[in-house]
């Protein structure tokens, strides 16, 4: 018999579970602290280290359930949508469905995620209990993932009916990286890539050829996905590799097959031998050659996890949970764009790679962004009153200030320019999916025209100038690229 001491030495500690339970209880008592739960949803969190996949689902599910009661903050929304889009554990999906009902702004855009979850849990559902951590559901008591998803659909339907006569803004999808439509994860620009540390990391490909990371990826843009062959979630790794094969076909159709590399790197290098990598890729239609490879880091995945900020947890050498993640690297082997957590769109990935290949377009885009910012600043500093004209002329050394004519006809010009700037900010914001710049510009325009020139509130024009300038800068930020 195995000695109890041996088992205790190898059994996972219960401390992490107790910590999660205690924190969830605290947050339920003090809902304002709900933000403290969000980091627990990240796969790299230490509380999941060494846990089985089943226990990881249960712990995450327990955290998600708390949001149903204390309200679901926007920064936790992407985790909930991810679970609905690609989760296949009944407990976690049921908990995500219930958590979504804690969101303050039910949106029709959530419906496809819930419908996808209904498909995902078909044949995987279970009797669930959300009363106590670790409870098993019993017939007649408790719930099921399907029941929770249907309740969430009913909640969304009721909210849509109630909001039908209210402003569309209240039913719009929250903005930001969290909330793309189903199957279209937004690209996130990576401001400060940290891959220098892995430049010399040795990678081995599907044919058993070894080369440093820098040598494999430098010289051309690359599209790099992460996966592992023992992933049992059909919505994650298997789909990722099948979609990467489609990316290869799209690149070939666009004549970019030889100009953009594609690669998939395994999270599980100890098990995923070159032969396994090759068979897995070929079975999913991937083309394999010198520029299109399946890779593993024989020394371990940890340096890649650090460099790319991978969200993956392990039980022993095996993955217990990971998010979907794909990166577009520039010709210096630096990740420039990331598609993470939600399912990515092949055309969008190809568009990012194509953008990296086209420097003139980048310059033009940068110029557009700069022009846009400068226009906003120019509006902000447009002289808007006699004193402004005097001040400007004084600054530039003009003599005989009292003789400078104040031109009232400039006021309509100013108002027109401000409104044109406002419309441009709206258009730009709609295109980018973020109206932050528009709101700032609108505030600035209101302060200048209504408060400053209309009501003569002291300081309003200055505040308007600042808001307009800020709006222009925020609006032009991240507008580079497709």
């Amino acid at each position, binding site marked *: *018999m*195995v*000695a*109890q001491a*041996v*088992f205790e*030495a*190898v*059994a*996972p500690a219960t401390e992490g579970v107790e910590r999660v339970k205690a924190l969830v209880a605290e947050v339920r008592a003090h809902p304002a602290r709900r933000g403290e739960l969000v980091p627990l949803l990240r796969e790299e969190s230490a509380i999941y280290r*060494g*846990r*089985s*996949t*089943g*226990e990881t689902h*249960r712990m995450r599910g327990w955290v998600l359930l708390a949001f149903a009661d204390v309200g679901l903050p926007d920064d936790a929304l992407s985790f909930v949508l991810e679970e609905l889009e690609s989760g296949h554990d*009944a407990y976690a999906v049921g908990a995500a469905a219930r958590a979504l009902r804690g969101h303050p702004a039910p949106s029709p855009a959530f419906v496809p995620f819930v419908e996808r979850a209904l498909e995902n849990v*078909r*044949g*995987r*559902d*279970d*009797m*669930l209990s959300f009363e106590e951590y670790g409870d*098993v*559901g*019993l*017939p007649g008591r408790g719930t*099921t993932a*399907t029941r929770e998803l249907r309740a969430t659909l009913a909640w969304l339907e009721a909210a849509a009916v109630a909001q039908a006569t209210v402003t569309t803004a209240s039913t719009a999808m929250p903005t930001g990286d969290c909330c793309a439509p189903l199957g279209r994860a937004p690209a996130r620009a990576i401001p400060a890539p940290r891959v220098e540390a892995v430049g010399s990391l040795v990678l081995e490909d599907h044919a058993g050829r070894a080369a440093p990371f820098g040598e494999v990826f430098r010289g051309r843009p690359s599209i790099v996905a992460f996966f592992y062959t*023992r992933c*049992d979630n059909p919505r994650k790794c298997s789909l990722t590799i099948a979609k990467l094969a489609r990316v290869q076909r799209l690149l070939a159709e666009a004549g970019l097959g030889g100009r953009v590399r594609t690669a998939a790197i395994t999270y*599980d290098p*100890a*098990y995923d*031998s070159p*032969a396994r990598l090759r068979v897995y890729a070929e079975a999913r239609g991937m083309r394999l050659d010198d520029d299109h490879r399946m890779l593993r880091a024989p020394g371990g995945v940890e340096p890649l996890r650090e460099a790319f900020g991978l969200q993956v947890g392990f*039980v*022993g*050498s*095996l*993955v*217990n949970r990971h998010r979907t993640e794909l990166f577009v690297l520039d010709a210096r082997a630096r990740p420039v764009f990331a598609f993470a957590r939600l399912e990515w769109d092949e055309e969008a990935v190809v568009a990012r790679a194509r953008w990296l290949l086209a420097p003139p377009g980048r310059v033009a885009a940068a110029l557009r962004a700069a022009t846009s910012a400068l226009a906003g600043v120019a509006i902000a500093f447009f002289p808007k009153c006699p004193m402004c004209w005097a001040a400007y002329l004084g600054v530039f050394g003009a003599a005989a200030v009292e003789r400078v004519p104040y031109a009232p006809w400039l006021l309509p010009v100013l108002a027109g320019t401000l409104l044109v700037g406002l419309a441009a900010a709206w258009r730009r914001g709609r295109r980018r999916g973020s109206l932050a710049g528009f709101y700032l510009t609108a505030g600035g325009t209101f302060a200048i025209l209504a408060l400053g020139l209309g009501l003569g509130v002291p300081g309003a024009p200055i505040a308007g100038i600042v808001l307009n300038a800020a709006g222009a800068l925020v609006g032009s930020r991240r507008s580079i690229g497709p």
Partner: protein
Amino acid sequence: MDAKEYRDQVAREMAAAKATPAPAVPRGSDAGIDAALKVLADGGAADDARIAALTSLKAAAFASTNLAARRPEYLAALRAAVDSSRGALQHRVVATLAREKDASTQQRLVDGLTDPSRALLPPEEAIPLIGEDVKAGVYPLLRAIVAKPPNDAARVAALRVLAADATSKDVFEKVLRDKGESAEARKVAAAALQSLEPDAFHEHARAMVLDPSETEDMHAASLSALTHFAGDAALAGDDELQKGVDALHARTASPVVKRSARAFLDRVRR
């Protein structure tokens, strides 16, 4: 369980299923599923009837889409049956739940390994079921069982499950090198190493083929692995190995080893 025992068991179960009266409602229909779930969960029903109900539900999983929507009730009925059954029925119920990766069942199987008084099944039967969920985090426990097994069958079962654990290569190399180990354990170790670390295994296989004191079983297994899985580069120009296999072919009395040696020589001399 060897092949004959398994065949006998299947024959018994088929005979029992034939003897069970046909259900009044079509299998796979909602009414049929209802009836089968009721019988399965009923601790007072005869074991044969409950086994037949379970068989019918498993068949419905393939033959009908209705069971997918009823999975929560199916799992609940199975969980209820775990504690209200014994023997073959209990084994089948627990095995079904383990294959569904049911966390509570997995935990009870693990608990039974540390405390036999709580065991649902003997360790050699529980371990393969624990291995149904490779992400259950049980590899450290299984390595402990290999080091200090409750019995030989449990040790072999633990080795089989560890064959999917890339960090257990050392365990397999040790078992493979040790001629004092049972033939069964060494064969499992050979297969595991072949899967996890093919190059390292081919080195071991070569050494075993050239070792006259090795058993016939290991000679045959090593030759077969080299014939079917070793790369051409590893075999080309290895005159010492070819001479060794020639000699083995000439001296062995085992028809299996002779056949394996012939296949190997045919491949390298093709």
